[in-house]
């Protein structure tokens, strides 16, 4: 049974998207990609550091991977649009993750500016994946703005705190007719599994893998967890009950009652 995820005009099979930041050495990235099986990897755009010219992340990302540049650093919609256009010029496709952040302590995204940037870029033909707080009203605006998916956070970026926003993500899964890709804050494979059991379309992870003692093994663990969660969702979880319901027959006991 084919269970592909459609984002824009592309289908992906693996519902784990990985980041490329925070690794102790970038040369580990091919092993991360292999262990996770991911088909999409995020990157950021920065000024070249002329004293450290060898920092070209793309040489570590396999050529068949779909790049997802983010607009990190953008403080408003105009800056996000500029970063998106610069990224597209490179020739790696038209996918863009909108990240508009003014808050340096919690790195929480600005939903209003994110919607503005999404509308501009969607009209220019980008496949837009906006990163947001799990806000239903913002998410509805993003649907109208032409987003290809909605990416709500589970917890603040880099915290590994897991599903702090579980109930709000559930609302988005129920109400928003776009793929819901949970991005940021997932810390454990069990968090990712839970997210997929809930019906999310995919997970985007960076810190949880990069900060692990064994990032390659952790990438494999997340791949398995996400696959398990997705299969559980497709299988249909059994209902919960407030009372016990016996798993063995209640007749034929070896005693007279």
């Amino acid at each position, binding site marked *: 049974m084919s269970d592909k995820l459609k984002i824009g005009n592309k289908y992906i099979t693996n519902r784990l998207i990985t980041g490329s930041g925070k690794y102790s050495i970038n040369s580990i990235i091919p092993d991360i990609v292999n262990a996770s099986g991911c088909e999409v990897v995020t*990157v950021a755009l920065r000024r070249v550091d002329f004293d450290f010219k060898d920092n*070209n992340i793309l040489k570590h990302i396999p050529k068949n991977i779909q*790049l997802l540049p983010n607009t990190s650093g953008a403080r408003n919609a105009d800056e996000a649009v500029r970063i998106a256009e*610069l990224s597209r010029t490179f020739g790696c496709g038209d996918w863009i993750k909108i990240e508009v952040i003014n808050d340096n302590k919690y790195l929480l995204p600005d939903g209003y500016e994110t919607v503005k940037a999404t509308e501009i870029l969607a009209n220019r033909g980008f496949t837009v994946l906006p990163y947001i707080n799990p806000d239903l009203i913002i998410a509805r605006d993003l649907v109208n703005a032409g987003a290809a998916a909605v990416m709500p956070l589970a917890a603040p*970026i880099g915290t590994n705190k897991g599903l702090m926003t579980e109930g709000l993500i559930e609302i988005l899964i129920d109400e928003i007719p776009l793929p819901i890709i949970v991005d940021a804050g997932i810390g454990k494979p069990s968090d990712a599994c839970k997210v997929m059991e809930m019906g999310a379309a995919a997970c985007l992870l960076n810190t949880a893998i990069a900060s692990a003692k064994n990032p390659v093994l952790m990438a494999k663990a997340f791949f398995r967890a996400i696959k398990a969660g997705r299969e559980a969702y497709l299988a249909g979880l059994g209902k919960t009950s407030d009372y016990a319901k016996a798993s063995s027959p209640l007749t034929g006991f070896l005693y007279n009652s």
Partner: protein
Amino acid sequence: MNIYLNGKSEAFPESAVLMNIIKSKKLSPDTIIVEINGKILKKNEYRLIPIRENDKIEILRFVGGG
């Protein structure tokens, strides 16, 4: 002449074109994105674009990110 390269002031010969700057920094054109005075350049323009006094040039590349 003086230009602003990635936010810092630098001096370059009067006749410089963009590719001279890229080569002076020992960068491969295939790994970078360039913007001059707010205009994003195509790679085939790097050899053609002359540099003028006070030009604001941004040379960018992809780095690791989440």
